[in-house]
């Protein structure tokens, strides 16, 4: 088994990138130049891909650009519902018995659509993970990344994303598309460091309660990205999820 000294081994953030296509939301959150830039995709592919795929690929591209490396790395794509707009179109067609279905819409409905297009665009033959855990998604994506870094790879890309939610599926919430990406490294030490995400064992009344699902579960990455943006040195505990036992991560800024 892995030596217990590695149990909380920190990993470094070599690059980060985000995409918030709605300019009002982006500026309210204090992020500039957050629009979609999926130029890594060929123009014909870009026209066929959804907002979900494009925000994920945009954020990943920015994280790689910031780090100056990374396109061929293993990548972890975290989403709650993936290609929900494509799924909406297919389910409407099915409800109207409007057959045959579009073959392009069908293969673009799988949850690893963004991962597949990223791999094809970058030529990366590394592992592409597509995973989901709703409002725990960012926390468990970080945990999956941390586990991969301790066992199978020295560097990994992580992106958490979801696109606009069709209104009728979640009437009380308005999810707007966004994506947050990190390029993580096992060995570097002079960069922002993240320890292993841990789950609170009891409710801490001092913690702010945020319902990340209200705006989009990918927004669970926001507190961490705000710390990155502020770049104040020191150590702090960041809440990564909502719920009775929220996930947290200890982050150290250089």
């Amino acid at each position, binding site marked *: *088994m*892995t030596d*217990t000294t*590695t*149990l909380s081994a920190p990993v470094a953030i070599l690059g980060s990138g985000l995409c918030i296509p709605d300019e009002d939301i982006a500026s309210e959150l204090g992020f500039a130049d957050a629009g979609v830039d999926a130029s890594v995709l060929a123009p014909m592919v870009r026209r066929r891909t959804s907002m979900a795929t494009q925000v994920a690929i945009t954020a990943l591209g920015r994280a790689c650009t910031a780090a100056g490396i990374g396109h061929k790395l*293993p990548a972890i794509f975290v*989403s*709650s*519902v*993936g290609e929900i707009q494509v*799924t909406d179109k*297919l*389910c*409407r067609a*099915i*409800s*109207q018995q409007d*057959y*045959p*279905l579009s*073959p392009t819409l*069908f*293969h*673009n*409905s*799988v*949850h*690893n*659509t963004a*991962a*597949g*297009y990223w*791999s*094809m665009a970058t*030529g*990366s*033959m590394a*592992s*592409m*993970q*597509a*995973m*989901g*855990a*709703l409002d725990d*998604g960012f926390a*468990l994506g970080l*945990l999956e990344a941390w*586990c991969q870094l*301790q*066992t*199978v*790879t020295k560097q990994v890309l992580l992106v958490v994303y979801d696109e606009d*939610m069709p209104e*009728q*599926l*979640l009437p009380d919430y308005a999810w707007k598309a966004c994506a947050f990406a990190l390029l993580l490294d096992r060995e570097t030490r002079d960069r922002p460091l993240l320890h292993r995400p841990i*789950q609170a064992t009891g409710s801490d009344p001092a913690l702010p309660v945020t319902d990340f*699902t209200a705006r989009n579960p990918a927004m669970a990455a926001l507190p961490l990205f705000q710390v990155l943006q502020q770049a104040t040195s020191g150590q702090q505990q960041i809440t990564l999820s909502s719920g009775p*036992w929220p996930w947290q991560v200890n982050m150290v800024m250089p």
Partner: protein
Amino acid sequence: MTTLPALPITACSVFSACGLGTQSLYQALLAGKHRLQPPRLFEIDFPAWCGEIANELLPELTPSLQKFSTRNARIALAAINHPADGLRSAVEQAIERYGAQRVGIVLGTSTSGIYETEKAYVWLKEHGQVPASFSLPSQHSWVATARFLQAELGLEGPCYVISTACSSSSKSLASAQRLIATGVCDAVLTGGVDSLCRLTMYGFKSLDIMSEQPCTPLDKDRNGISLGEGAGLLLLEKPHKNFSGCVHLLGCGESSDAHHMTAPHPEGKGAVIAMHEALAQAGITAQDIDYVNLHATGTVLNDSAEMLAMDQVFGPELHCSGTKGLTGHTLGAAGGIETIITWLSLKHGFRPGTCNLKQVDAAFHCSVNRDSETDVPVAFTMNNNFGFGGNNTSVILGEQHD
């Protein structure tokens, strides 16, 4: 990279068109008669066969967890509850042994509760809104079935879903393995579940790869897939001398084709990487493998690419077979169910045959088993699964190996 510790599979269970429980699946593999039939769950306007589970075999969810009720959740619950496989009691023992927070769940699924979402859209068309019983988080979201099992079993560790189309549940095994290898969890319930729906049935039809007859993987005249549904669930635990007699998970390999959304790399380049990586992680060589359960979907392209990849890794003496002619292609559950088929191969010293195979494609060089062989020594097995997006996995099971 590093060799990961061999992890014991302390319990597993399976549900498919072959019936409930590992023993039913074993008997069906020995008999080698397909369980496919035209779909009864819903009408379709083209000829197709599928491995469907009869509605009356699906248990109801407990009233307090009704918000999670989907076909997917009910299939998984049946496998959890099957007494002869003892998966529920093994999970309960793991909770007692390690504490609920040390027991995680990583499940693979491609469909999640989309069958219920389809019904919600019919209601939407007629009433202008989805029915009150529909819950996007608890039924449609990727993690819905895993959250149900977490609540049903009282697990408190990490809970997430892998959804990479047809490789989903073999990738879930790899994630579970890492959670234990790094000490995050002491036990993880893993594998996968998928259920039939119109979206996949008409979707694969739109790609023109649905066979009009029961599918015939690896046959020279193969002409497409037959869909299936089911669950293949396994409990992985950290190594302990008490589990030395268990079949162990030895290695997982994961790769991408970087080639096409639906077509495999023509020479199986990504598949070769996944198989080599699994062997390296298990610390064994290709010569050590006694049986490979192929992905073998039954499409002309998929089977050809996989067998070209096999030629690059194995010699002609390697025994392999495909079992989707028996169960149908269970998509996100295929990795779980077919890993359990290799578990059965190790447990019983047998190599399954290739159901519906008449004449193997002459272009294939590895030794494709048409019929099941019993009383053969099997120490190491591999299971391949490849999905849309060029997503490849190989999983190696075997005796504990130092």
